[in-house]
């Protein structure tokens, strides 16, 4: 095929056929671009990718550079894991919701913890006022964790835990619950988020400064590669970066830059890249601009494979595979006409699946209003099941490959990502870029521009600035019992009374001593403390005393 022939014909077409139409019927807008402002061509042609480059850039699924997917058969072999993020109130209530979801055909668990748990405070800490059990389940001690997973076979389900700063402690609780139920460590499957850098950028549940935080993460990599081989030791997350208002390309760029930093830290600590890189996983957002999102996922896979191979010299193909979880975009949901959100979530589900996700959480329609009700959660799960079993898009691997438009978008996003990665490298790496506020500023500028476009009606949000109706707020919103904190405090007090406090003291002191020695791996000490029923807060306080606390660098 002679590319020039096509290019010449396009020029001719623009001057004749197209011109005539445009003269009579101008287009709706002067500029068309994706949701993240990537310019979009009216009609894409093969000039944007050279047929010779097919093998280098697109290739085959399950082979480097994995643009088309990490598995050769993708969903023809196995569907993605349907994993709804859930948890609220007490361990008892959340346990009930998990059993409900598993009964409805969900295939993996995803635990949401409340904010005190995520920041390493016990429920009776004064910092926890108002927050206990609100955005997730409250966990103070191993006892809460035993209740949370009561009756759930940990050797059969995989569990994802959204926990970062105290990830080591919650993993320790999980290991201990498994042991009590006769499930050995090598049978445990799941993921801890464990991605501290994006907490400094976007999500805010940090405890310690970057250096000791990176040490904890490296300790986890090392411990798990030896002891829990099926555990995903980190879920490097762009989700929250996107929620904070980034563009699609920024989401990929900053996430991969975080990933580079973790690998650098682990390699510096003496770990062999092929020993741990295969257990790294990623977590991305899916927004409404369907084709841009598909291109984003494809570009992310291609770039990561290249980074692992060329920058870190990985030999094992598994180390080069970007495996990821997706959640549909919480910030795209509207409080107005909440039923419309079902449609948005459907588009986003298509984006994630056409983009080759390994697992997916679909948001419930009422999440802009509060915690989702059981009925709303069911519709969200059904959305995935309909796409999986009725839409037919699972039959062919990477079915949008070769679309001139999608390939061209994939290339454009890739270019933008490399530009960011180079810039971050120039700044000295991601820790420096975050400390300088560079990353936060880039995201905030994009968030501000986006919101301004909505306010100025340049960007239409159905039901928000166009097609509005006066609809009363629905009243079936799930509420967390305000008395929960009291009950949770009673529970943790009782655990403190009944445990062997000498043993607890001894375990905590041992942890404190290990923390002083930068060459020590803290995981075994944390597991010992957890098993002695030391509270989450007590364990984190030992580390706070040693490591100090992170202070936000405010960028506006």
């Amino acid at each position, binding site marked *: 095929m002679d590319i020039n022939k096509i290019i010449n014909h396009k020029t001719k077409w623009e001057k004749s056929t197209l011109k005539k139409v445009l003269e009579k019927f101008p287009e709706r807008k002067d500029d068309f671009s994706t949701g993240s402002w990537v310019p979009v061509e009216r009609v894409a042609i093969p000039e944007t990718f050279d047929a010779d480059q097919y093998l280098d850039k697109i290739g085959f699924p399950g082979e480097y550079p994995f643009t088309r997917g990490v598995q050769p058969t993708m969903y023809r072999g196995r569907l993605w894991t349907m994993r709804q993020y859930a948890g609220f109130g007490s361990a008892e209530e959340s346990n009930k919701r998990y059993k409900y979801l598993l009964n409805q055909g969900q295939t993996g668990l995803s635990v949401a913890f409340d*904010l*005190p748990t*995520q*920041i390493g*405070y016990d429920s009776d800490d004064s*910092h*926890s*006022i*108002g*927050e206990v059990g*609100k*955005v997730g389940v409250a966990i103070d001690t191993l006892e809460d964790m035993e209740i949370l997973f009561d009756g759930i076979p940990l050797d059969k389900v995989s569990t994802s835990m959204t926990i970062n700063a105290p990830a080591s402690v919650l993993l320790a609780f999980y290991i201990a619950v498994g042991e009590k139920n006769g499930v050995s460590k090598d049978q445990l499957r799941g993921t801890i988020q464990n991605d501290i850098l994006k*907490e400094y950028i*976007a*999500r*805010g*549940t940090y405890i310690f400064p970057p250096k000791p935080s990176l040490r904890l993460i490296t300790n986890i990599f090392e411990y798990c590669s030896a002891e829990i081989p099926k555990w995903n030791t980190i879920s490097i997350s762009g989700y929250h970066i996107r*929620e*904070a*208002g980034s563009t699609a390309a920024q989401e990929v760029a900053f996430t991969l830059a975080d990933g580079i930093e973790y690998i650098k830290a682990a390699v510096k600590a003496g770990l062999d890249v092929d020993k741990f890189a295969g257990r790294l996983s990623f977590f991305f957002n899916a927004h409404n601009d369907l084709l841009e999102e598909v291109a984003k996922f494809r570009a992310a896979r291609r770039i990561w494979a290249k980074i692992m191979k060329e920058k870190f010299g990985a030999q094992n193909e598994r180390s080069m595979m970007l495996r990821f979880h997706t959640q549909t975009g919480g*910030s795209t949901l*509207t*409080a*107005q006409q909440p039923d419309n959100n079902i449609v948005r979530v459907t588009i986003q589900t298509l984006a994630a699946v056409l983009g080759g996700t390994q697992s997916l959480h679909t948001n419930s329609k009422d999440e*802009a*209003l*509060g*915690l989702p009700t059981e009925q709303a959660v069911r519709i969200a799960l059904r959305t995935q099941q309909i796409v999986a079993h009725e839409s037919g898009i699972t039959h062919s691997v990477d079915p949008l490959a070769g679309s001139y438009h999608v390939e061209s978008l994939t290339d454009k996003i890739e270019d933008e990502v490399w530009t960011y990665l180079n810039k971050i490298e120039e700044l000295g790496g991601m820790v420096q870029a975050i400390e300088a506020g560079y990353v936060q500023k880039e995201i*905030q500028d994009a*968030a*501000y521009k986006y*919101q301004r476009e909505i*306010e100025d009606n340049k960007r239409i949000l159905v039901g*928000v*600035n166009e097609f509005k109706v006066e609809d*009363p*707020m629905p*009243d079936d*919103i799930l*509420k*967390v019992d*305000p008395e929960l904190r009291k009950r949770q405090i009673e529970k943790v007090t009782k655990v403190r009374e009944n445990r062997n406090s000498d043993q607890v003291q001894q375990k905590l002191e041992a942890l404190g001593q290990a923390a002083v020695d930068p060459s020590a791996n803290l995981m075994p000490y944390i597991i010992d403390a957890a098993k002695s029923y030391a509270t989450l807060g007590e364990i984190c306080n030992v580390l706070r005393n040693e490591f100090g606390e992170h202070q*936000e660098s*405010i960028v*506006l």
Partner: protein
Amino acid sequence: MKQKLRILISKPGLDGHDRGAKYIARALKDAGYEVIYTGIRQSPEAIAKTAIQEDVDFVGLSLLSGAHNELFPEVVRTIREAGGNNIVIFGGGVIPEDDIADLQKNGISAIFTTGTPVQTVIDFIENQREQISH
């Protein structure tokens, strides 16, 4: 009340969702107000202290974690106790309709839920300015 109004935007509690707070802070700045943003994870005491020190006329609180019923009234109480009797306090975030009346009873002058145009907030501020100066 001064010519140029001073506004403190803050995030009480442990919630890290600061996109809305930062947007409001920047948009109010662009609208000509003096705006101070505290950052996330502020205790009621810290917010009250900054509000008094910075001699602000308004305090805007943002919370998406559901802790508003406990924390917003606590911030009002702390600010009043610290002597900020004339400071107008408003809030925003994921706040169910049912909770708004109680928050208003407890000294939160207005609640702006998701999707509120920034002009609505500006109108509120200007309306309060008139009320106070009359």
